[in-house]
């Protein structure tokens, strides 16, 4: 009789374990890496807006070379203002350059300079892709 009671108790506890696992699977979330190409995640709350992109050679645009990219950026809502890790991928006719830096974004547009490791002769086709990941 005592053994039966103990077995029932163990069974009950095992069911609790399963219930806990089910509950956890319901409330847990996974990364969605493909979302917006931004490597980010589960609950949508706003946008990082890239208002403009400029290719510069030093401080000038009067050149067919460039060694830094200037992005004009802001966030769509004050609730998502804060520190971001922004990555810029420059594809200059097949040659890829990637620069990442931390910036503080607000609802006011600001210009951020991303320095490239070398002087680049601008190709016929240049693609600038911007990714952002919130840090705080």
């Amino acid at each position, binding site marked *: 009789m005592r053994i039966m009671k103990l077995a029932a108790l163990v069974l009950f506890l095992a069911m609790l*374990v399963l219930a*806990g696992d089910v509950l956890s699977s319901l409330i847990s979330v996974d990364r969605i890496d493909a979302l917006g190409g931004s490597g980010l995640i589960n609950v949508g709350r706003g946008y990082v807006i890239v208002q403009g992109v400029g290719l510069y050679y030093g401080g000038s645009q009067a050149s067919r070379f460039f060694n830094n990219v200037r992005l004009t950026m802001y966030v769509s809502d004050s609730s998502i203002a804060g520190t971001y890790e922004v990555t810029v991928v420059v594809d200059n006719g097949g040659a890829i350059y990637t620069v990442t830096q931390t910036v503080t974004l607000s609802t006011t547009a600001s210009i951020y300079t991303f320095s490239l490791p070398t002087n680049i002769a601008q190709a016929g086709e240049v693609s600038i892709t911007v990714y952002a990941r919130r840090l705080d």
Partner: protein
Amino acid sequence: MGLRKAPILSFLFLGILLLLLCFRGVFSAALNVSNVDPVIIVRPEIFKFHSQSPLYVRDANLTITTAGSITSVTVTIYNDGSPRGAVVYVYIYDDAGNLIGSGSGEIKNIPREKTRIVNIQLTQQPQYSTAYRIEVSVSEA
């Protein structure tokens, strides 16, 4: 007496252990939720400049209204050769590759090794939230 209590204590210990195991997933999930970033989508995500030597697209800047519409694009063109005019086209695409906005403009004359700016009004005015890719191209007028 001690010998009779030993199995009870053992099962009590086992029970507590199982209860902790029971809630391990919940604790883990709660920790994951607190560490998860919100979805921050970059819009537009890609700017693509199509140049045709000696004319180069150097800058594209969107005019976005407070309502979120892209109304125009200001483009800077650099001329690396002798003075000439340029025609500039702007295309805006959504995630699916659909054209959702476009426009064109002309610059009469760009002096040698100088830049000129042209503001291109868009025929459609898409919401920035739907704009995934901006393409700007330049050719000689």
